[in-house]
């Protein structure tokens, strides 16, 4: 975390310090209408009919959902901000999908499960504490602003964990593996922070 920085000669910010939106975590700026795309791989084209979502690992009843099965679960909407580690935030977003709780309810997580490896149809992975995915804090999202999620933004379905930096919200989500220890995922092995709490500015290893 930073202490006060000296002023940069001649720099005039977009607005006064006291006009900074309190919904912006430290170091973030408001991207307004922009919704940048920052994946490290080529965008895959996955038809909804071919998409599947699996939960396995330390669970009593591993299970795979098809698109129709996942969409038949009770819908749930998130309205609020998202924060990318590259310093932009979007303050008013609306994603609709299914709460991760609804999926977990069906698989009987084992008490020894403490962490999750979220993995994508591209092979992308990211690690999360199980507690960051439960209690109405995470979704499998299908729609953004009332429209099907585009492929560039992770469609047909992405993980949405809006209280953490957005690299945790794995695009093209393929599954969650419940595990008994924290194992770094793709960016975490590339020196990003293990947890990624934007309010604690946990961007990189050691933050």
């Amino acid at each position, binding site marked *: 975390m930073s202490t006060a920085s000296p002023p*940069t000669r001649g720099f005039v*910010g977009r607005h006064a310090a006291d006009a900074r939106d309190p919904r912006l975590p430290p170091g973030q700026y408001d991207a307004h209408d922009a919704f940048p795309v*920052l994946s490290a*791989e080529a965008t895959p084209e996955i038809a909804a009919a071919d998409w599947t979502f699996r939960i396995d690992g330390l669970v009593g009843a591993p299970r795979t959902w098809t698109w129709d099965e996942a969409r038949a679960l009770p819908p749930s909407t998130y309205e609020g901000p998202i924060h990318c580690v590259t*310093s932009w935030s979007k303050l008013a977003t609306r994603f609709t999908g299914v709460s991760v709780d609804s999926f977990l309810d069906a698989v009987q997580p084992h008490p020894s499960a403490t962490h999750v490896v979220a993995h994508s149809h591209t092979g992308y992975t990211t690690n999360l504490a199980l507690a960051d995915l439960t209690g109405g804090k995470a979704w499998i999202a299908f729609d953004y602003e009332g429209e099907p999620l585009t492929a560039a933004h992770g469609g047909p379905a992405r993980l949405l964990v809006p209280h953490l930096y957005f690299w945790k919200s794995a695009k093209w989500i393929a599954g969650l593996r419940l595990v008994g220890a924290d194992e770094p995922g793709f960016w975490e092995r590339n020196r990003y922070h293990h947890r990624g709490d934007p309010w604690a500015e946990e961007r990189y290893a*050691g933050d």
Partner: protein
Amino acid sequence: MPATDDLLPPLPEFAAPGRVAPSLRGRVQWQHAEVVAVRRETPGLRTVRLALPVWNEHVAGQHYMVRLTAADGYTTQRHYSVASPPGDTGHIDLTVDRVEGGEVSGYFHTVARPGDRIEVRGPLGGFFAWSGDRPALLVGGGSGVVPLVSMLRHARSVPGTADLHLVACVRTPEDLPYASELASAPDVTVVHSRRAPTGQPVGRLTAETLAPHAAQALAEDREVFVCGSTSFAESVAKPLLTAGLPPTHLRIERFG
């Protein structure tokens, strides 16, 4: 009973492994860099050379965070790739594209001058990085050339690094950054989308124009680094994958 690990199917591997050892060092701190030169690179690009009191050698392709502070304490930060090679000890060059109404790029284009001090933190990112250990094809669009030129400069200045070829995509000859290093060089192909020097073709990079580079990358087991806007990145990545490039060999950096 919970399933045990050996009964679980292996997770699909993401591809390309990281390039910078996670244990390299601890937290990378903010520091006060001094602007030592500002150079107009092209009508839209400006290179700002910074002297760093604390030198953490980067791997070509990595980036820094920049933080600016207004008189009232308001701060804002952005990420910029390093254009200079790792061997340029104590200094980094950032090349910044002018963005209409851009808060930080506007500062670099209209305010920054030698003697100014700004806060920076880096190097950051361990995936879009080339240490010189294996041959690579580099494809950049506009300011996407920035991290790639760091790789090219590294390859040219350090004997024994693997072979690189850069495909730089710009609109007109005047838009080519680092022109004295990139124009008519055997390890660079410049693609002009709007206007080209006499005798050279005009047109966007297509699957067809990429084909010989893709074929060479496949034949020589090259890694491919693609950098630019997301539409540019997709327009390059798709034909490369269609041509048979394994996804494990593809690294993309998007500026947003």
